[in-house]
């Protein structure tokens, strides 16, 4: 029994340590975000942020777009097959529009970014830890938080909401294509239906979620990278841990945000 209690206690302490470290890192990065801003910050950090924006955002456009198109079709087809029975086919438009703006858009984007960039952050920083590049930065009087984390966070804060809006557009477009071929509904009529079904608060709630997801993906990915100790195999473990932890926390955060919006009347 004592052994079980010890295991529970050890595991609890480890998780508290992880959450504490993650919180400190997040706060330090938010405080250092100013150095990555254009005009007022360090121009090299801003340049690094632009490079990150290309990697996190621009390079993810095809993947996010295709995922959104597929999910838009799936949602429209699944919804239509049930709604047709009760003669409420037109509600498919609402289902796709609201489903994407509130939920699927931010979540799909976050999962795509987590898979692409979360693991890349862990692997990059993990390699830097193993090869002592982080130590080299510190002895050259660079702050690793400013040098490595701030550009990544700024890039994610800008690109993930943009990708989310793009994902929403693609998903809703896929729903429109389905409606056109299944019910010969014109695209103009479909778009009118979309505009009447979604409200600004739906879009804003989705964007708020995407900002939170961006912070989680960058912070968890980088945290796993900074925890890397050992050889090359440790980098692989960190990359896996980065993508698994960030995806898990994104879904937990999504549940929390959805509950908040639901109970505060946002939805």
């Amino acid at each position, binding site marked *: 029994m004592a052994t079980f209690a010890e295991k529970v206690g050890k595991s609890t302490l480890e998780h508290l340590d992880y959450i504490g470290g993650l919180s400190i890192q997040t706060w330090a990065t938010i405080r250092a975000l100013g150095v990555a801003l254009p005009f007022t910050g360090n121009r090299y950090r801003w340049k690094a942020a632009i490079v990150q924006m290309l990697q996190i955002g621009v390079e993810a456009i095809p993947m996010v777009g295709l995922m959104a198109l597929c999910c838009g079709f799936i949602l429209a087809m699944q919804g239509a097959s049930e709604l047709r029975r009760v003669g409420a086919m037109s509600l498919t438009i609402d289902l796709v529009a609201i489903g994407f703006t509130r939920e699927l858009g931010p979540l799909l984007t976050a999962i795509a970014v987590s898979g692409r960039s979360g693991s890349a952050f862990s692997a990059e920083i993990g*390699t830097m830890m193993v090869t002592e*590049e982080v130590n080299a930065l510190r002895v*050259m009087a660079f702050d690793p938080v400013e040098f490595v984390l701030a550009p990544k966070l700024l890039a994610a804060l800008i690109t993930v909401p943009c990708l989310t809006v793009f994902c929403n557009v693609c998903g809703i477009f896929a729903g429109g294509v389905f409606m056109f071929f299944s019910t010969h509904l014109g695209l103009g009529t479909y778009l009118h239906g979309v505009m009447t079904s979604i409200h600004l608060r739906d879009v804003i709630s989705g964007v708020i979620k995407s900002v939170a997801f961006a912070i989680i993906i960058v912070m968890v990915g980088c945290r796993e990278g900074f925890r890397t100790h050992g050889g090359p195999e440790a980098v692989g473990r960190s990359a896996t841990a980065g993508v698994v932890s960030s995806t898990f926390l994104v879904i937990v955060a999504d549940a929390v945000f959805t509950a908040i919006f639901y109970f505060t009347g946002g939805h």
Partner: protein
Amino acid sequence: MAMISIRDLVVEYGGRRVLDGLSLDIEAGETMVLLGGSGAGKSTLMRQIIGLERPKSGSISVKGVDITRCSPAELKQIRRSMGVAFQDGALFNSLSIADNVALPLREHTSLAPSIIDLDVWIKLAAVGLAEFGKLLPQELSGGMKKRAAVARALALDPEILVFDEPSSGLDPIVAAELDDLILFLKHTFQQTVIVVTHELPSAFRIADRIAMLYKGSFLAVGTKEQIKASQNPHVRQFLDRVPDNTATTRTVEAYFEKYVQSPAPSPRPWRPWERVEAYFEKYVQSPEVKR
């Protein structure tokens, strides 16, 4: 006043004492070699000197500033007067060699780009890599990587230059070239040089003084001649390359006798019916056992 002054330095990892009350003064302009075997604590001491870790107790003063208690801003300022060449170079793989050297100059100085380019070329030429500036670190050999790391360490013209195992993993000729480079830099730039190594020829070639570490304590600190003349048994063992005879120690002998020489117990044959019979006898047939 000494350039670096270490007093009663104690470092522990998870309750295990790695450095045990070290005190050492490193004077300006001297080359101090931290010599010792694997696990002696020399790399830990180097990490303390460059401010990567904080000790359990004791102090390290660099240019009169106690880096174990100073503010982050003061530590940053001190670090700008230090150049560190790490064991495997620790060059940024995404940057060319020239960009690696230019990085601290671009970020910590307000020099014009043309001046920075010139300075980078001078530093690369000083280590013999003037023609390789455009290459990436992964395109260089081990020795060239180490020299590139030295060029980057020299970028801000530091007063203190630290080398972590400069000769390890190199063939004797390249290792001797690096020793020559350290001597050349010392004579040219008049820097305080700290070298962490376990290579005896290299240590005796470049050192002004040697601090010999053994299990987290200094066995001897002195000039090359004093270290060579030392009669301390551990110093002599290290200098004369006498093995520890680990294979003949009592622990290994006992292990050998127990697990290798004695016949292994034969595995018990798997007869499940015997266990069923025993259970039956104990719990069903015997009248003492109450259900």
